[in-house]
C-alpha cells in the first residue's frame, strides 16, 4: 500500500546569486549589511519540484512543509515558499549564528520526525558556503536512501526513481520511500509567486522554534581562522586580430 507523501523542503536564505560578495574588514566573513538576500537557487528548485509533484497528483501529497534555519529574517524565504505552494512552515531561529551542515542536518532530522516526513527534497548546495553536504548528512543520520544532484524525479507509489547528474553523464537510481533527494539546476524552472498568493501566504502557518526546542546544541566543529579575497589576476590585454592572438599565445607559451 502506498502512503501519502509528506514532503519536507529545507530552504536557506543566502546572499542573492547575482551579487559579488565583499569580504569584511576584519577578514572574518562576508559583508552582509545592506546586501540583497534571496532564497538559495537550489532550494527554490527543490520547492518547485515538491509543488509539481503535488500538482501532478494532488491526492498523493498530504502536505509540503518548508523549513528554514537562520535568523528571524529567514521568515522572508519561508513566506516565499508558502506563496509558491508550501502548505506550512517552520523557522528554527538561531539568530545570526552560522550553523554548519552537520548541525543543520541534526535539526532537520528532528523536524523530519516531528512532521513525520517521508520525502525530503533539498538543494544540492547553498551558494554561500558551497558545502554540498546537508542532504547527504541528513540521509546518513536517518539511514535513508539518498539521490544527489537530481535532474529528474519519478514517483510511483512508494517507489522513487531519480536520474542524477554525475561526472561524465547521468545515472538513474531507484529507492523506496522514505528518502532524500537533492536537486541539480536542471531539475526544473522555479515559478514566481503571484501577488494574490503572496497575500494568501501571510495566513499560512509559520511556526518558530529554537534549536534548543529540538534538543540540538549548536557547536562549530570548524573554526574559521580567516576569510580573504582570492588572488587577483593581473590585467590582460586586448588584441585586434587573430594573428596577434596567436602570436600572444606563443609568447605566453600557451600553444
Amino acid at each position, binding site marked *: 500500500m502506498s502512503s501519502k507523501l509528506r514532503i519536507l523542503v529545507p530552504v536557506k536564505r543566502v546572499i542573492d546569486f547575482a551579487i559579488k560578495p565583499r569580504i569584511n574588514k576584519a577578514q572574518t566573513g562576508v559583508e552582509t549589511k545592506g546586501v540583497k538576500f534571496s532564497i538559495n537557487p537550489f532550494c527554490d528548485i527543490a520547492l518547485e519540484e515538491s509543488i509539481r509533484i503535488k500538482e501532478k497528483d494532488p491526492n498523493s501529497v498530504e502536505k509540503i512543509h518548508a523549513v528554514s534555519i537562520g535568523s528571524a529574517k529567514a521568515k522572508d524565504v519561508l513566506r516565499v515558499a508558502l506563496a509558491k505552494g508550501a502548505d506550512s512552515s517552520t523557522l528554527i531561529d538561531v539568530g545570526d549564528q552560522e550553523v554548519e551542515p552537520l548541525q543543520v542536518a541534526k535539526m532537520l532530522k528532528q523536524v523530519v520526525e516531528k512532521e513525520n516526513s517521508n520525502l525530503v527534497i533539498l538543494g544540492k*548546495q547553498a551558494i554561500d558556503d*558551497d558545502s554540498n553536504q546537508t542532504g547527504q548528512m*541528513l*540521509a546518513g543520520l536517518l539511514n535513508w536512501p*539518498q539521490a544527489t544532484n537530481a535532474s529528474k524525479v519519478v514517483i510511483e507509489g512508494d517507489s522513487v526513481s531519480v536520474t542524477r*547528474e554525475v561526472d561524465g*553523464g547521468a545515472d538513474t537510481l531507484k529507492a523506496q520511500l522514505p528518502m532524500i533527494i537533492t536537486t541539480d539546476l536542471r531539475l526544473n524552472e522555479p515559478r514566481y509567486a503571484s501577488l494574490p498568493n503572496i497575500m494568501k501566504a501571510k495566513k499560512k502557518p509559520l511556526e518558530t522554534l529554537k534549536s534548543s526546542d529540538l534538543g540540538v546544541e549548536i557547536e562549530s566543529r*570548524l573554526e574559521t581562522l580567516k576569510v580573504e579575497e582570492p588572488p587577483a589576476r593581473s590585467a590582460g590585454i*586586448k588584441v585586434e586580430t*587573430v594573428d596577434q592572438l596567436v602570436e600572444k599565445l606563443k609568447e605566453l607559451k600557451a600553444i
Partner: protein
Amino acid sequence: MSIVARRFFSGTRVKLDTLALLEGTNGKPTPASLSTIAAAIEIGKPITALILGSNADSIAAEVAKTKGVDNVLISKDSKYDHLLAEEVTPLIKQIIQGDGSNYTHFLTPNSSVGKSVLPRLGALLDVQPISEVIKVIDVDTFMRPIYAGNALATVKSKDSIILASIRASAFAPIEETTGQAVTIEEVSQSSESGSRTEFVSEELISSERPELGSATRVVAGGRGLKNKETFEKLIEPLASKLNAAIGASRAAVDSGFCDNSLQVGQTGKIVAPDLYIAVGISGAIQHLAGMKDAKTIVAINKDSEAAIFNVADVGLVGDLNEIVPELIEKL
C-alpha cells in the same frame, strides 16, 4: 599483481593514518584520485588507499606503485561497483573504527562520488567534513573556496578525525611511481548495509577527448554560439586542433548546445587548465568560479564590456563566427 593478504579487523593492525577513497576507470586511477594522493602527501602522514568494486584489482595494482602510497585496501564486492554512498559508507566507517586503526584523516576526490559519500560518512561518524580543499595549511587547517570562489576561507577542524574532499584542479596529480608495489590487502564488510537503493542504469558520454576535469587545455562555448550546430561547427574543431577538452557555460548547456556534464562553473566542473579559451561566454560569477584558476585565459566575445575580459589574459572582441574559423586555420 602483488600478494593479496586478507585482513580480519583484528588487533594486529599496523598504525595507519590517512585513508583515501580512490576511484578508477579503465583499470586506472582517475586523475582526480591522483590529485587526492597529492593532497594526502601534503598532510604528511602514511597513506592508505581504498579501492572498491569488481575491478578494484587492476586499479589497486596501479595505485600500489604510486609514490606516496603506503598501503592499499580493496574490496572486490560487486555491490560497491557504482560506489553508492549507502553501501560504501558503512564499510568506511568500519575500517576507520576498526580495532587498532588509527586514521586521523579521510579524503575523497571532490567528484560526484566523493560529494555523495563524504557527508554521509560525516553523519555516521558525527564529524563535520570539509568540502573542496584547495590548500593544505597544516594537519588540521585547510583552505577552501566559498561564495563561488569569491572568497577563500581558512578553516581549522576540531574533530578527532578530519574528513575532507579534495579539489582536483588545485593539486597536480601524482604520476610518479616508486617502481615497487606495496602489498594489497582485502577488506570486507562484517555486516550488510541494509541499503534500499538500487542502481538502475547510466548514460555516460563517451568521448575521445581529454577528460574535462584534468585536461591541460579547454575550449568552452557559451550563449554567444546561438545554437547546437554552431557550437559543434566551431568549438569541436578548435578543441581538436588544440587536443583540448570541451567545456560550456550554463547558458549553453541549458539551451541544449551540449551535454550537462560539460558545464564549467560553481555547480559544474572546476577546471584549472594551462589554457582556457572562452568563446561567446559573458563571464557570470558562477562560470568564473569554475575556470579562473586557469593559467592562461583567452576570451573571444563580441561585447567588449563582457565580464570575461576582466579575467582574460588575452581578449579579442569580434564576431566569433569569423574569428574561430580563422583561429583554427592559423593554429
